[in-house]
């Protein structure tokens, strides 16, 4: 009886700790860094509208 109670306690505790870890563990974070030159922050002119469209992505 005592052994069964110990096994049950260990199972409940381990499952609860697993749930707590999943529930409170901080989400992974991703950081993206992009350098922006002064040329990319100039006032747009009609000639600058012909730039590469894939530059932004």
């Amino acid at each position: 009886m005592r052994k069964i109670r110990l096994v049950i306690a260990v199972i409940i505790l381990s499952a609860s700790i697993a749930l707590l870890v999943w529930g409170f563990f901080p989400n992974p974070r991703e950081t993206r860094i992009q350098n922006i030159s002064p040329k990319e922050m100039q006032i747009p002119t009609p000639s600058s509208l012909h730039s590469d469209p894939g530059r932004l992505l």
Partner: protein
Amino acid sequence: MNRRSALLSAFIALCGLFLFACTIGSSESPAPTSAPVATEPPISQTPGPEEALRPAIPETRRLILEYPPRVRAGNESNLISLTLDVDNLGKITPTAHFPGNITEGGVIEIPNLYETHNVTAEAQFDIAGLEVKPGGVTFQPLRQGEAITFYWSLRAQEIGTYRGTIWLYLNFEDRSSGEKSRVAVSAQIVEIEAVDFFGFSTNFVRTSGVVGSVLGLIVGFPFFDDGVKYLWGRLARRKRKTGRPPRKM
């Protein structure tokens, strides 16, 4: 026989002529995708004198986007930040290029945009299926040497993979004429995955974890009690041993 061979040679010559005409026609007719590229003037990487003297922001900036690629579905809120920082290491080196590969170093006075214009940064986070606050467009004034940060709070009610775009624009308003212009600086695509715990919500999992821990401690209390008593007894015995004076040989 002669007539037959003459006909055969005429047929072969006609076929050859037809094939030749086809190849000429196909080489002369331009492909629809390559035609506009061929007619476009080549894009020059080096700015012209007018472009170089346009008012510009006299600093290199760094755009830092921080977001969670995976979030828990439920009522939990997550933070996304977009910082337009000043890059202290980035320096602008003015150079002047002349034909004949002669390069002359000199100071090019680029007009400071901050002195002539009001600069405002505009950011927007577009993502379908997720609750984002603040929604829509947010503005922040951009001043020389100062960093700005945009924050969004994100919440996912349903599990799934969501894709969105974070836009950053710069708005310029001429102080003298009031003329406004806008330039897109960055459009970053983000992918966020909302997950749950085998179909259970985050709140349910957290509550179950707390309740289960308490229950587990109650069920296992006699054993913990025994364990604590055993450890306490060993500690007390060791203390007693160290407290005794050493035996004389």
